């Protein structure tokens, strides 16, 4: 009679993955990421030539910029429709007439979408790494560590935006509105936030915005936490990214930054589950 607690989320996750594979969504995302990662890898290595910077470190810097633009976008497109869309199409009322809790529904979808995104990232960026090895580029163990950190944190950034997308999807009654808000979130976190922060810093000239406050402001944006994690992660990378100065100023270790990203995932996901469980279907 009793079904283990995680069985239902795993069944739901499996269905999401199969859906993603069937409608070619996973293939499209993987190809897109692989194509962009490979172009950046080879274009990016042209100017460095044979300077002492490790080829992988260059790739980590360029791919982190790619992640910041692309991964949140893919994650939001994947997630904004997850709840409101199923309610709209009528599949949700049938699903909820089964012995599943709404929390399990949100968790199951999250696991399925995250697995799809993780696959696309792993294969897409992995292709870039494999191409570098194939060309016999200079790759040290520290470079590989930074590269692995990049892939892992890219997936974590994806998790953040999938969770944010669910929150929007649970809150809004209309699919169109959910899509609009999702794009708005992307614009704010990826573009507007940094520009506004830069503007404030320039205007302020360091009078009121102290380093402590800057730390908090960076924590307010998961994309910045991701950037900081990757660009200051290793001495080599931060040197190359021109972030060495900042890395010295900002007192946020890699563990703190990853914890910030995990918090940015757990909080919206929990809120989405809570709001969804109170929603009238």
């Amino acid at each position, binding site marked *: 009679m009793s079904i283990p607690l995680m069985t239902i989320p795993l*069944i739901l996750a499996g*269905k999401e993955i*199969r*859906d993603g594979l069937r409608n070619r969504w996973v293939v499209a995302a993987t190809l897109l990421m692989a194509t962009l990662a490979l172009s950046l890898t080879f274009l990016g290595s042209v100017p460095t030539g044979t300077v002492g910077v490790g080829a992988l470190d260059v790739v980590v810097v360029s791919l982190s910029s790619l992640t910041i633009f692309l991964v949140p976008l893919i994650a939001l497109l994947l997630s904004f429709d997850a709840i409101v869309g199923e309610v709209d199409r009528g599949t949700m009322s*049938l699903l909820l007439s*089964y*012995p599943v*809790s709404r929390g399990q529904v949100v968790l199951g979808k999250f696991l399925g979408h995250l697995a799809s995104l993780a696959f696309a990232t792993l294969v897409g960026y992995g292709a870039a790494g494999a191409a570098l090895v194939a060309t016999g580029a200079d790759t040290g163990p520290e470079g590989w560590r930074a590269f692995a950190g990049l892939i892992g944190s890219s997936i974590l950034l994806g998790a953040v935006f999938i969770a944010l997308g669910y929150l929007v999807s649970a809150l809004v009654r209309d699919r169109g509105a959910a899509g609009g808000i999702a794009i708005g979130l992307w614009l704010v976190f990826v573009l507007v936030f940094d520009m506004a922060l830069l503007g404030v810093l320039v205007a302020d000239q360091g009078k009121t915005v102290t380093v402590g406050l800057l730390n908090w402001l960076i924590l307010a944006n998961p994309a910045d936490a991701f950037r900081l994690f990757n660009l200051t992660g290793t001495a080599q990378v931060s040197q190359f990214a021109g972030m060495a100065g900042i890395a010295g100023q900002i007192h946020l270790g890699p563990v703190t930054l990853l914890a910030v990203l995990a918090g940015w995932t757990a909080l919206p996901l929990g809120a989405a589950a809570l709001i969804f469980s109170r929603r*009238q279907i």
Partner: protein
Amino acid sequence: MSAHPVNASPTSASPTSASVVIDQVTKIYGARAALTEVSLHLDPGQCVALVGHNGAGKSTLIKLMLGLIRPTHGQVRLLGEDPAGAHAARLRRAVGYLPENLAFHPSLTGRETLDFYARLKGVARAGNTDLLARVGLEAEAARRRVGTYSKGMRQRLGLAQALLGQPKVLFLDEPTTGLDPALRQVFYEIVQELRTAGVTVLLSSHALTELEGRTDRIIVMNRGVKIADGTLANLRHLADLPVRIQATGAPAGAVADALGTLGQVSTNGHAVECLCAGGDKVAVLRRLTGLPLADISVVEPSLDELYAHFLRREQAT
């Protein structure tokens, strides 16, 4: 809104043994009341039809019974427990539901869809082949993606998923809308089998004529209020609508003379039509058979007419 629900079945099973009990339930969306103080109960082995216009509150009632929504006031009990409460998941293992706007994930095949729902319900998937055959989905069709299905095939798959795990209570929301007559037949045959097996079946519909003779009880809803509840015979008795008797072969004058004050006589083409009260039916027939008639037929008020009657009565109060 003065409602005097007709409860024509006061002697039916007590609410303690009922599968579903709705007690003084009001459901308000924003400023609009979708249901107003509705009380009813459904018993095991009973097939109950829920009839009413679109927007009468049929789907809202079913969603309340499933625990998809909560009542604003009043209490809902499904198999003795709150369907939106802590044991909701366990309760739903004993429930089947066919929603009004049935939608499946288009990229899965019919078989995969049924397997998915079977796993969610904790039911062995081995029985799914038989289940698909029972609702008339052939093996070839089960291998195709649901996105390619016709309305009838989707509805068959919908019924199959509702039957998973031998539910004790089955909610079918507008199950036969848009189906061809052959499939309707299959549908009602399955419902009949389930009823015999002791399952509570609640069927909402606005296609009234096809419900005649297929349900044990009829609940009539109008604008969120229950306006009638009883067997077809009970409702006919309560409505006391005139019975129409058509006769051919005798002139209208002779018929009128024979009936006296028992019925109103009019001509309809070459037939003579008399309207009489249900209670006078036998007396009227006895008198008519004394005349040299070629043919005679008795038309009882249809469910459509009963429904119209209860709506009129409701509007008059």
